[in-house]
């Protein structure tokens, strides 16, 4: 009975909330497909954040009410969305001008693997015969000012997703700034991975065991 209240790690919403806290007022943000999309639900009140979707909309709003969907108003994941007041539409070359030209402040992405030097792999497992699909992932990591990763700390099989070197094909080299997992928040620095915050019930040693790269602790002044 004494263990029922001991919480271990963060759930998906809680991870998304942690990311959301780090998105400042006025930021232009691109959210990847899947878990990253949750982030929009947790932006603290009072902050105005503008969402970019690479298929040509700045000022993406929430999903429409049922019956209000417009098949010509979708996001990069091809789901129905809405647009906010002050939104604008543009073509694909202009959209990637925003991305490649370093105009987007933050991109939150899911990953297959992320390495201690910030290498990111999220587009292909390199499997023979599979249809390789890259979409805008490589453009985003090459162009957006700050790349944040949101991920389960390990795969379903318990294999680390945070590794010394990516074994999957890279999406971009040395691009990730911070990793938000169910177990911790890690900063990617020139000196390696530093633990910024541990999730409830997670200690450094446990975290290290779940991680395929060496972790460092910040020294307190």
């Amino acid at each position: 009975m004494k263990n029922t209240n001991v919480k271990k790690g963060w759930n998906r919403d809680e991870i998304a909330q942690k990311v959301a806290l780090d998105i400042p007022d006025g930021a232009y943000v691109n959210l990847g497909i899947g878990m990253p999309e949750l982030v929009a639900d947790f932006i603290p009140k009072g902050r105005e954040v503008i969402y970019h979707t690479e298929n040509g909309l700045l000022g993406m709003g929430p999903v429409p009410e049922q019956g209000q969907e417009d098949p010509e108003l979708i996001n990069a994941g091809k789901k129905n969305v809405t647009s906010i007041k002050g939104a604008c539409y543009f073509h694909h070359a202009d959209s990637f001008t925003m991305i490649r030209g370093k105009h987007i402040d933050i991109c939150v992405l899911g990953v297959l693997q992320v390495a201690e030097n910030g290498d990111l792999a999220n587009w292909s497992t390199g499997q023979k015969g599979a249809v390789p699909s890259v979409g805008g992932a490589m453009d985003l990591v090459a162009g957006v000012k700050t790349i944040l990763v949101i991920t389960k700390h390990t795969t379903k099989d318990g294999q680390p997703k945070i590794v010394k070197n990516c074994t999957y094909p890279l999406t971009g080299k040395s691009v990730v700034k911070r990793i938000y997992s169910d177990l911790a928040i890690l900063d990617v620095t020139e000196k390696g991975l530093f633990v910024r915050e541990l999730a409830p019930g997670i200690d450094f040693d446990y975290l290290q065991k779940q991680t395929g790269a060496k972790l460092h602790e910040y020294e307190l002044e």
Partner: protein
Amino acid sequence: MINKIVKSTEDAVKGIFDGAVVMIGGFGEAGSPIELIHALIDQGAKNLTVISNNTGSGHVGLAALIEQKRVSKMICSFPRTSNSTVFPDLYAKGEIELELVPQGTLAERIRAGGAGIPAFYTPTSVHTPLAEGKENRVFNHQTYVLEYGIKADFSLVKCKAADRYGNLIYNKTARNFGPVMCTAAEITIVQTSRVVELGKIDPENVVTPGIFVSRVVEVSNPVHESKLVFENRTYP
């Protein structure tokens, strides 16, 4: 007198030849010119190289064109689809070639093709498998990869309204690749939900100037691809 309006989708796709390079607009179903693609299926041209962000859904539109084995090569950023096995099956059998291009690089290559830029450097894909075999070059201590402008013989594009000069406006995120594809083809073929009188589109709001458009056909109630897919429809 300039009048780019043609009477039917059949007239619109006339002259597309075997082996042609064809750009097809759309991101998913948004902006996909399904009626033009179906007219192209009826028209018969084969051995096509198709440049489009995706490979279509279900067994209609672009997926149907591929299923009819009319496409020998796809140039796209995201050929994997959740609701079609047409491309993956042919790809697995080695019956269709794929050139995978990052989405922003694809858009920029098309824009460059239309703008008379034969090649440019981009940071996208550097140090990844998609940059293998390509020229790397350092500017200001950062590495970039050389990519080439790309042009087509024909572009098929969908829009919301057009006039007889070929001036176009689009609907929301259905704009996507349309404007750049219009600039990059010898012959640009557009299906529009509405043909409007000259001057009805405010000169400040024209998205694609008519100079980039060759033929316009009105398709006043275009089908929704997702609806066709949901109904398990096939073409032809």
